[in-house]
């Protein structure tokens, strides 16, 4: 047995190997966790809230429609992203054909398009007055109602749009899985008599399944979180229902109840995703880099492979980007003015401060986890890391309810004692917006910073300490230089996500405060699709930055080959 007095002094080798005098760090982590989970808990608590009249009405009229539409959309988007994502991942990881290297990273580019922007673009292109139908009528001489043309603003249209911009999630994760696993396992399967193609079905695909499922659940989370596209298409799903109930019917409780049901869907996906990722770890074959088995495609097969990669790239990025650029050139004289510059500035300021805050908090959390590797701290960080799955609409409701309550309490208190009115202090302020961004996007920066810190071995700290450095000096001289790239990446990704974010910004922004995303949404809502193109193009261009970063890491991922 160990004397109690010594236990206190005892140092653990997993966490920091020195006694720390930072009494506020751990409570800080817990406080932050509580604050950030407050919105989610608020919304979830409405599941238990007794139903009111409006809720009864919703249940009788639209709830089934929401459920059905959401289910159909998930089914459709799931199928679409799966076929495109896994297919392209397989072609670009195991087959050799002309242009393969370019496709490998270019196929990520549709990720730069927020769903609502690609929806506006295709609607503008394909609606009655758009270039496609006009040209068709000119060429054929058909009258306005003499022919059938598929309607973009429909469930099928939404599924297509989502599939085109969300397949990169599946592509990215399944490609990584193919690259890691097929090396050794596919070779073994071939020595056992499998051809490359049968090896795909019998070995590579089953092994990559956890990664594919993880990618799929990410794509579906984005589908559920979208508000911009479904509201533009006029589809009845949860996010649009929440908006209608809140702002149309003015019933916060019923809206929150809808949000809570949406949360149930999302949490199911989170659980599936985490479970799959965990299983994916077991499926790692080796960390040895040897050359991949390559299947060289020639002639017709090579052409088919090229076409299969060109289609999603063309329709998911090149065509809509070209259309946006064309519109922007036609309209920039009237749309790019002082107010547009103000919008851009607003967006950049907002995104930059949110990103800086997210990185600072992420460093605080991830470093805390490294210093105090206790189960409670780890659990806290896992809770924070769930935020990325919560739709912006839900976050916004979860933020506004407790903040409004707080404002009312303060106001009432001041009235009672000082006969003053404080009005709205926090709700409707930039604070509320920033709070919501942290709930939703902190997870991304935490994940990034954590992986960066995780790559710095504990022995690195030991080496520095054996060379007479204090822990604080180590942070400055060793950790920060080693994590520069990670911190920058975390900053960029949050920056871009905030730029693109629509529903939470729409609900929580201060009065008269606009961003590029909100402006694009408003113009599109007024059917001024061409006018929205400058703002939309700006968002897409900024969105390309992290995609290109990702592409670079994809092309250097297999250093050994």
């Amino acid at each position: 047995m160990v004397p109690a007095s010594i236990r206190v002094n005892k140092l653990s080798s997993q966490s920091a190997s020195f006694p720390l005098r930072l009494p506020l760090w751990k409570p800080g982590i817990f406080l932050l966790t509580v604050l950030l989970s407050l919105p989610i808990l608020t919304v979830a608590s409405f599941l238990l809230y007794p139903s009111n009249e409006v809720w009864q009405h919703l249940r009788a009229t639209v709830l089934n429609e929401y459920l059905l539409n959401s289910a159909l959309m998930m089914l459709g988007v799931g199928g679409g992203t799966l076929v495109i994502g896994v297919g392209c991942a397989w072609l670009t990881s195991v087959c050799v054909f002309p242009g393969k290297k370019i496709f490998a990273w270019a196929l990520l580019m549709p990720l730069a398009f927020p769903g609502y922007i690609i929806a506006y673009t295709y609607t503008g292109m394909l609606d009655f007055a758009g270039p496609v139908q006009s040209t068709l009528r000119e060429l054929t001489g058909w009258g306005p109602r003499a022919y059938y043309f598929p309607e973009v603003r429909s469930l099928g249209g939404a599924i297509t749009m989502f599939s085109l911009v969300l397949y990169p999630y599946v592509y990215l994760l399944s490609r990584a899985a193919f690259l890691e696993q097929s090396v050794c396992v596919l070779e073994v399967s071939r020595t056992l008599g499998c051809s490359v193609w049968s090896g795909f079905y019998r070995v590579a695909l089953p092994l990559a399944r956890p990664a594919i499922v993880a990618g799929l659940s990410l794509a579906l989370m984005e589908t559920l979180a979208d508000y911009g596209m479904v509201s533009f298409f006029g589809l009845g799903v949860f996010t649009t229902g929440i908006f209608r109930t809140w702002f149309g019917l003015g019933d916060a409780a019923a809206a929150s109840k809808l949000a809570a049901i949406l949360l149930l869907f999302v949490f199911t996906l989170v659980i599936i995703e985490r479970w799959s990722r965990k299983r994916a770890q077991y499926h790692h074959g080796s960390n040895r880099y040897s050359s991949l088995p390559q299947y060289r495609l020639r002639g017709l097969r090579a052409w088919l492979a090229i076409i299969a990669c060109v289609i999603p790239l063309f329709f998911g990025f090149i065509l809509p980007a070209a259309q946006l650029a064309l519109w922007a050139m036609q309209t920039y004289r009237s749309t790019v003015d002082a107010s547009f510059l103000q919008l851009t500035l607003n967006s950049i300021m907002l995104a930059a401060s949110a990103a800086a805050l997210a990185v600072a908090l992420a460093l605080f959390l991830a470093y805390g986890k490294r210093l105090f590797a206790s189960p409670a701290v780890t659990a806290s960080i896992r809770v924070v890391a769930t935020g990325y799955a919560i739709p912006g609409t839900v976050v916004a409701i979860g933020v506004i309810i407790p903040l409004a309550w707080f404002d009312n309490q303060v106001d009432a208190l001041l009235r009672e004692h000082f006969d003053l009115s404080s009005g709205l202090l926090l709700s409707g302020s930039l604070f509320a917006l920033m709070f919501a961004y942290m709930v939703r996007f902190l997870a991304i920066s935490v994940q990034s910073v954590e992986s960066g810190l995780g790559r710095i071995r504990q022995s690195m700290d030991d080496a520095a300490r054996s060379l007479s450095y204090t822990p604080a000096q180590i942070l400055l001289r060793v950790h920060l230089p080693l994590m520069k790239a990670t911190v920058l990446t975390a900053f960029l990704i949050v920056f871009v996500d905030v730029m693109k974010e629509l529903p939470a910004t729409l609900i929580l922004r201060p009065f008269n405060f606009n961003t590029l995303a909100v402006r694009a949404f408003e113009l599109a809502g007024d059917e001024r699709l061409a006018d929205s193109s400058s703002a939309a193009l700006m968002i897409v261009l900024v969105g390309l930055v992290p995609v290109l970063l990702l592409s670079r890491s994809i092309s250097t991922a297999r250093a050994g080959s």
Partner: protein
Amino acid sequence: MTSQLDVEQLDAGYHDLQVLNQVSFSLQPGEIGCILGPSGCGKSTVLRSIAGFEAAWRGRILIDQVEVSTSTFSVPPEQRNIGMVFQDFVLFPHLKVDDNVRFGLHRLERHEQQARVQEMLAIVGMLAYAQAYPHQLSGGQQQRVALARALAPRPSILLLDEPFSNLDVDLREQLAREVRNILLQENNTAVLVTHDQNEAFAMADQICVMNEGSILQQGSGYDLYHRPANRFVADFIGQGVIIPATVESPTTVKTDLGLIRGENCIDLVPGSLVDVLIRPDDIVHDDDSVESAIVVEKAFRGADFLYSLRMDSGVEVMCLAPSHHDHKINERIGIRLNVDHLVTFPRT
């Protein structure tokens, strides 16, 4: 002479698991000590305790006659004036070779830093690579830089944690000898931890054999090989077999191989049964000998053959023979006993 490092009855462990049990040893200035043992025996914990990464549960550690670890306090690693070389080198990947070496010299003037860096890089033969990044170096080169980095601040004690185990076998012993020469040149006191006895023999003056958290024997490589204090050390160091014997007199035992004489043995009671350690070099291959045995197994090792032989009595022994004595399996060859050190253990 006052010792440079004293480890006194050290107990330590992780969480509730005690790993070290009453570990004690001392090193004089300039001495190179080695803790040798199988993996999991606690040898790295000793090193990490000396470095200050682990706390002492009981006992104490003194560096330069100053207490640095006791059961109630622990001087943080950065204040202990130690240097450490790690198994996986752990060079700072964002710094060039010279900046890695300079890293521990932050308390010196700039020009002193520069001079010391140059000096250290010259000593380890890495001057030409001063501007390279760690990832551009081979494993052996990285370990040289790591050694230069650890020695640059002139530590009181240099700690080496399995420093050669990530290197090719060829390189290991060569580098071990080189490192020993560098340490002697700089008059450094050092503690090496390894599971490889050849490394230990090549580098250390004093070797502590450790198992299950305790030091079983301390001595030179020669002592450990020829005078093992117990069966574990006899088995762990070198090769050999243990055969039964009867004590004839306090200096003589009788075995199937004949009478073996020796001095400095444990008190032998005539008539009692004991076990005797026979090393391969205790049995000499001699075609003229009257004693013979049958070859059961043979291993070609370059300069010599290691034969496993079965005596007529059924006892098996090993014999080291020069490599031009190539005999077939099942062949009967002449052998002769040539035991310089009689090692006996009580029969269990």
